[in-house]
């Protein structure tokens, strides 16, 4: 069934989800004060930024895996 092959290929895009899943994990890298953003230390705005990243990547994956269906 060629259709199944295409679907499996599209599902490959789901590996991109690893990016937002792993982004909040390297604690040692973002446990710092500088650079600040609007007076907020890096530690905090980086993690909140991960939320934006998660939305962007998940939306992208959703579009790529469902395209053409």
């Amino acid at each position, binding site marked *: 069934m060629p259709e199944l092959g295409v679907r499996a290929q599209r599902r490959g895009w*789901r590996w991109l*989800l690893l990016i*937002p*899943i792993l*982004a*909040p*994990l390297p*604690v*040692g890298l973002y*446990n*710092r*004060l500088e650079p*600040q953003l*609007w*007076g*907020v*230390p890096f*530690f*905090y705005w980086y*993690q*909140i930024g*991960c*939320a*934006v990243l*998660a*939305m962007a*990547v*998940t*939306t992208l*994956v*959703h579009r790529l895996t*469902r395209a053409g*269906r």
Partner: protein
Amino acid sequence: MTVTARQVEIGVFAVLLGAMLVLGFAAARWRRPPSLHSLEEWGVGGRAFGNWVTWFLLGGSMYTAYTYIAVPALVYGVGAAGFFAVPFAIMTAPLAYLISTRTWSVSHAHGFVTSAEFTRARFGSRGLAALVAVTGIVATMPYIAVQLVALQAVMKTLGVTGEWPLTVAVLVASFCTFRSGLRAPALLSIAKDVLLLWLVLAIVLLVAMSGGWSAAFRGSGERFTADVSPASGLLLPEGGWLGYLTLVLGSALAIFAYPHALTGILAARDRATVQRNAAALPVYCLALGLVAMLGFFAIGQGVRPVGGDLNTVVPQLFHEVFPAWCAGIAYAAVGVAALIPAAVMSIAAANLFTRSIYREYLRPGASPREEARVSRWVSLLAKFGALVFILLLDPQFSIEFQLIGGVIVLQTVPAVVLGLWTNWFHRWALATGLLGGLATGLFLLYLVPQRAPDGRIVKAHFGGSNLPLAQLGLDSRSAVYTGLIALAVNLAIVVAATLLLRALRVPAGVDATHPADYYADATTTGTTAPRHSDTLLDGPSRPRVGAHAAR
């Protein structure tokens, strides 16, 4: 007669909360199905919620009042370490894209309303399902209780004392749920988010007008350097990384084992709704991040908690810095944010009981009508149980029990989450692992002492969820989340016991699910339900396949 600021606050709070509860009663008529007398309708809203309603409902049931109160309180107390809730919440969204879509599909194909039913079908064991159900109920009960603690904190700040205001609020909310089922919290979530949006805008404006975040963080930095505690600070202390990381990971996994998070997912109309929601849910993380940083803002403003109860920090901040009417709105937002998850949790616990205990052991072959009736009464019981719990015991107990609840529910992950991908595990191995994990988790929690800022031990046992490795005789200043250690022990037992049981040729359960079930969608013909015309309150199209056809 002059009206004081307090009276305005109480008035706005009471009127808004009252209006919300009236809305909850009206919810039974919202998108009225032919009959509310089945668990499909009462317990999972007919599996008919579209993108928007699902988003509001999931936001309402996962981002609880306890989160909005306890997270900034923790940040106020210890700084960076309290921020763990934000990365944990963010991680759940992409994970939900992978995990919850499979759960939704298999539940849709088989008509499950809880994850315990899934384990019964997957591993062919009603004993295992009952064990998962009981674990889920035990973990959920204290979670309901802490919601009421949050509501109590708001009332305490308002100066409303005594037991009757809380009792009345819970009473009315319980009857809403009793009558309307999942539709009540779904409709309330929408109204709540209007208040929440207002609150977020008010916070942004307020911070901008009072010196911005730099002032707040400067003030907090000074306080954290001045205090004696080595654990607090604007950044995680040396050796604090591991504890932070494991707590984030463990909490993120636990979300997929908590019964109430699943209820909202199962109420979604189709797979794409679940996926789109996974993409959109981090919007709530932005609100949570902002509210969490209020802890620092409160320090900068010199807010002192009422009666030393840290949970009152945020309500007290609202009182001190907002105009009275605006504080009243904020209190109402928190109050409704407490009643929504309490409702969803009691529904989830009731469904677990009805489907995996009542129908399996007490009344096999119960009619859908009977199931709905049992669930209604059990949900009422769950809420009142929680109420009695916090009225009779020190609220501190419910917070400790909630801590334990997270560790407990995590032990169902092998059966409930890993089971979505494999049926390799033996049913008795899963049961043994679950019990082993529970025992390990409880034992480790027992070992955790609570320390005062100066390092003195305040309480010898159940003092937190992170176990200092030094406690295990290791030469380290790090701590690890006990839930994750217990889960590791649990998994090791599951794998070892599965190998052993297979070697002994003990019959495994029969897997009633089919690989295709994990990709099942609401429509099989290829045309999906209207996506973009997903208006908020319109009646959805209800495809009559899978669980939808069962009616």
